[in-house]
């Protein structure tokens, strides 16, 4: 394998991991507030088709991203109203959101099936992009990839360095204490869920507009579920989400190359790896009380009843 091939694989890995970075970061913030939203796949798909239609009609990447994020957030709003205001079960609501989103996106995309877009151009920064190897590895991506890293830094900073982030995490650990301290548990969770929806939306936009700029029904192809796995795999930490996203992205890319190398590993084995790794991490952190408390939000998935205080 030449150095060039390795470089190409690395660059492709970053692109494959980016939708996961977006969606998993959003789900991370949602889960940190104590809410488990299993609707990521549906929100990504609706975000994807909304962004795709906008891009096809206007040609503006900015508008496509805005529309995709809005669509994702609107989807998550349905989930938020059900689980936070009407106190419905989070698992059932999330699954319904995914099933609904898969249908809705197919429906919205009837007229766009197999329409192709131009894609998003890679940035070319004078001098920097021309450095051998490093230029290709660091300064050759499209703008959405850089944006994902910016948002990653923002989420890490928000969660661990700001007062608001601390409050959000506290509410994920113990909504009762948060309520007693005078914070609006429901209000904060609304915002966290909406952020998760918007991020899933932009993750979807990345898939449909930049990664494979063509609309195909169900094209998010399970990335939403991988994103949920990823949050667990990363033990609810933003930086590990990024590492995990590129690892899982790398697995996808490896499937294309491994056959070319004449190695006889069925691609399905590689596709299983993210899920198996996630189960392994879950077992390791769950097996004793301290590691689970340190690693996962204590109130995750439990409906909060304000009246019971």
């Amino acid at each position, binding site marked *: 394998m030449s150095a060039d091939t390795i470089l190409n694989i690395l660059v492709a890995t970053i692109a494959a991991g980016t939708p996961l970075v977006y969606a998993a970061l959003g789900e991370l913030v949602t889960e940190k507030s104590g809410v488990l939203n299993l609707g990521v796949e549906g929100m990504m798909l609706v975000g994807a088709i909304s962004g795709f239609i906008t891009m096809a009609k206007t040609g503006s990447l900015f508008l496509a991203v805005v529309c995709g994020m809005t669509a994702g957030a609107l989807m998550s709003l349905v989930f938020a109203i059900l689980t936070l205001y009407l106190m419905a079960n989070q698992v059932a609501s999330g699954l319904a959101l*995914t099933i609904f989103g898969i249908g809705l996106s197919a429906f919205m995309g009837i007229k766009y099936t197999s329409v192709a877009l131009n894609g998003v151009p890679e940035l070319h920064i004078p001098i920097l992009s021309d450095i051998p190897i490093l230029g290709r590895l660091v300064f050759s991506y499209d703008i959405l990839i850089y944006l994902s890293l910016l948002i990653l830094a923002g989420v890490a900073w928000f969660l661990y360095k700001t007062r608001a982030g601390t409050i959000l995490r506290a509410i994920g650990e113990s909504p009762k204490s948060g309520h007693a301290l005078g914070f609006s548990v429901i209000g904060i969770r609304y915002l966290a869920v909406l952020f998760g929806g918007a991020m899933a939306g932009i993750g979807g936009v990345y898939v449909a507009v930049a990664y494979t700029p063509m609309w195909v029904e169900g094209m998010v192809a399970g990335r939403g579920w991988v994103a949920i796995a990823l949050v667990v795999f990363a033990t609810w930490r933003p930086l590990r989400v990024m590492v995990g996203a590129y690892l899982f992205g790398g697995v996808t890319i490896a499937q294309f190359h491994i056959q070319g190398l004449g190695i006889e590993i069925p691609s399905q084995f590689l596709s299983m790896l993210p899920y198996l790794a996630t189960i392994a991490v879950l077992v390791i952190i769950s097996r004793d009380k301290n590691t689970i408390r340190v690693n996962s939000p204590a109130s995750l998935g439990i409906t909060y009843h304000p009246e019971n205080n």
Partner: protein
Amino acid sequence: MGVKLLFKVEPRPVPLKKMRYLSPLIAAVMMLFSGLIIFSMLGKNPAIAFHAFFIEPVNDFYGLGELIIKASPLMLIGVGLAIGFRANIWNIGAEGQLAMGAVFGGGIALYFNESTSGFVLPAMFIAGAVGGMLWASIPAFLKTRFNANEILVSLMLNYVAILFLSLLIHGPWKDPQGYGFPQSILFSDSALLPVLIEGTRLHAGVIISFAAIGVGWIFLLRSFLGYQLQVSGLAINAASYAGFKYKKMIWIGLLAGGLAAGLAGVSEIAGPIGQLLPSVSPGYGFAAIIVAYVGRLHPGGIFLSSLLMALLYLGGESGQMNLDLPSAVTGIFQGMLLFYLLAADFLINFRFRWKSIPLRQGI
């Protein structure tokens, strides 16, 4: 003295029991109503669309058979899942357990392909049941031994199982004469379920599903174990005080779902499909969660809700043929049904009231 009216949500002193049974009806009506609005927004005549979606697929004998065929795996898995859900054990891995059932049962069918013995079919079902239960025992073991969240583990295992099935079909189990298509050879007659009624595709697998409704009813509503599951779900502390072993409930809850899903998997491949394909289910394992929920975790309710959900599948197919709608519209309806149900369930425990507050006289 003036009076100010305030619109207020307040908890009911006693949960409104009849709302538990009313809310699925409200949800179904709201879903139909929303569907009509969507159809007319698309410029389709709502009456024609309604007919094509909900009447056309079932207005003949053949169609009714198709309805039961689609409802069969849903009610079977729905009852299995309800057993766990009652104890608050969230098995969302039925889709994978179904795939594993198909792998185990299908393996028997392929291995004994030359055999004409009457034991092939029963052996397939036993193998499928074992496969589904083995797959469900992974989250059960990891939950009871390592406290790993069964929702996340069973969810992840769905994809592992589906990929495993795909691996077999693309590899060792691929039909050598299949022109490279990822599919197994067609099962021999001894591995196929007989058709029950001439002129339909209704196969003998539905008998298992109907039996499951009956067995589930006795188990959940008339057995001590069913009662223990229910108490564990409602009040875990009371259950442990009464000496009910929660670990046992976890095992029972998950294995019941795995058993049902495994049997459903065999029913599908030995019934309507007749061979192994990379995908043996259009999401029955997930849809069955909605079925169990809409059916109020009660076998009778699950029977009815499985028919409704099956009608939505058929409607989607019919809409695709007659109205040029994508078959995925089914998902919109199924999703809406559960949304409306979850929303209506709010009224079991809460009520909206106008509260009059006397205004204070001017200072």
